[in-house]
């Protein structure tokens, strides 16, 4: 069996060389290499891992110097909650951020209050408080310095770790 395969390969190789040598210049050489044979499939007895929940937790945004959840963002939080409901084991860090309009020290606290505000809303929807931790980055991690898009900086992001 092994010998047969070897023979075949050699024959094929010789044939390829011959055809290439015998070919006039206009002959097109194959650009794609011959793919190696696929490795034999391993048959495993262990059951497949449980299907991973793919989180797609959307950020929410805030008005200047505010930490209230706006109606549109409440809808987003509901969507985030619907996902988290299926994964009660998840650990979620809520990160609060600010734009650079205010001042850095106060913004550090304001970012925290935004994170706490988002957490409180999710808990009110029914989430387990113990799945969340909160932190603020104040105005330290801007997503944009374009003044017309400063709202994008006034945000909460939701990061999942299991």
């Amino acid at each position, binding site marked *: 069996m092994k010998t047969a395969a070897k023979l075949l390969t050699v024959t094929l190789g010789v044939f390829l060389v011959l055809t290439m040598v015998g070919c006039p210049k206009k002959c097109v050489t194959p650009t794609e290499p011959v793919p190696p044979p696929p490795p034999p499939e391993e048959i495993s007895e262990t059951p497949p891992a449980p299907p991973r929940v793919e989180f797609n937790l959307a950020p929410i945004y805030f008005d200047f110097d505010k930490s209230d959840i706006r109606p549109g963002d409440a809808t987003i939080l509901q969507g985030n909650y619907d996902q988290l409901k299926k994964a009660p084991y998840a650990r979620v860090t809520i990160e609060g951020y600010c734009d650079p309009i*205010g001042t*850095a*020290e106060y913004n*550090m606290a*304001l970012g*925290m209050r935004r994170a*706490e505000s988002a957490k409180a809303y999710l808990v009110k929807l029914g989430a387990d408080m113990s799945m969340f931790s909160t*932190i*603020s980055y104040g105005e330290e991690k801007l997503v944009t310095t374009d003044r017309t898009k400063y709202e994008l900086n006034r945000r909460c992001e939701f990061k999942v770790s299991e």
Partner: protein
Amino acid sequence: MRVSRLAVSKLAVGVLAANYLLLTANFVLAQDQPPLTPAPAVEVPAEELWLKLTSSGGRKKLSLVIADFKSPPGTDAQTFARIRDIRSVLVADLKFSLHFTFEEPESGKAFSFSTDEKKLDYKGWGTTGAQILVCGDLVSKRSGPQIQLRLYDLDVNRLIATKAYGLSEQWRWLAHQMADEVIKLLTPDDGVSRTRIAFSRAVNRETKELCIVDYDGANMGQLTSSGGLKLFPDWAPSGAALAYCTYGSSTLDIHTYALGSGKSVLVSSRTGLNTTPAFSPDGRTVATSLGFEGNQEIYLMDPNGKNLRRLTNNKSIDISPSWSPNGRQITFVSDRTGQPQVYVMNVDGTDLRRLTFEGSYNTSPAWSPRGDLIAFVQRQPGGTNQICVTDINGDTYMRLTSGMNNEDPCWSPDGLHIAFASNRSGSFEIYTMDWTGANQRRVTNVNGAYSPAWSPRLSR
């Protein structure tokens, strides 16, 4: 102890023109600021504030004339230039101090009057109108070259003081030492020539490191290089350490950095934000804002983070504490009315009162080491943040800056100058100005400098 601020404000205006000529390479005068006319606060004319702040009349400023420093024939060019540089730094320090007015000899006669110790031309120097003559001579001693500094009283024609300074590689420090000793001798105040400004520098988008620079912009250096965000530095009154904030795995923590060893020690890593540390004037206590009990409150703790005492108790943000110089009161920011405003309370949390009422956003208070003023940042109707000063009763206040954003005020140890961060050049840099808003000067050029902290007087 209490020096008339009215007198000082008048002096600041008088000194401006002279300072303009003397700007060294380290100083860049603010482009978009009109320093002669600090923008008055909406309600309060400047004069009214200064009058309120000054019950008694002002001390008369001494006028100085500073002769060229002399070196003996045959002095090498390098030493000659060094002597000239030392004089330049001395003059810059004395002008910055706001304690003096300055006279120059009439043009043509410039510095031709004799400074010879044996036959000083009192009459010639007297014609300048100055009260004090400052002379410097390079002399060779067995221990090495020295600068002999001499001060003369031109009113009574006599030598007041003389002191020799050994020339060294640390020549800028030497000049600063001369300036501080002249100020100490001639005024009731101590100078701030030997002070530095620590700040948080953006190294890249993800990283801020602690840096330090002389008050006049020389000797810029980076203190830390461990990565991460290092924020809100504050000096220990000893000048040996800085408290600052940086992120732990899930919290914003307070560390102290020792300038001698270059080592940082974790001080507080309680849940949430451990932020805005502020050493008490005696260095035995740190006021801070902690969030581990639900929201940001003001606490006192020992410098090692232990022995916690809570001062505020409400559902609002309480942050950015700053001590009165006698250590009995703390000014801080609270948004308990719905918007951030500046408050004052006793160190035990009693006698709370609101200090700022104008505007919807007042933050970053800094209590002057003289005790009479509190600097803070006020958001303007036009959308920028500007630095103001108010008297400690909150009766009157005055805006000192205009134009782009001017934030993070902190005081020089003599309470006559304010360092702050401004983005007037495009990126944030550290600037200094007089407490009246005059003489705004750029100190850094690092494309991202924040949160200045003016050192106490340093011994080196």
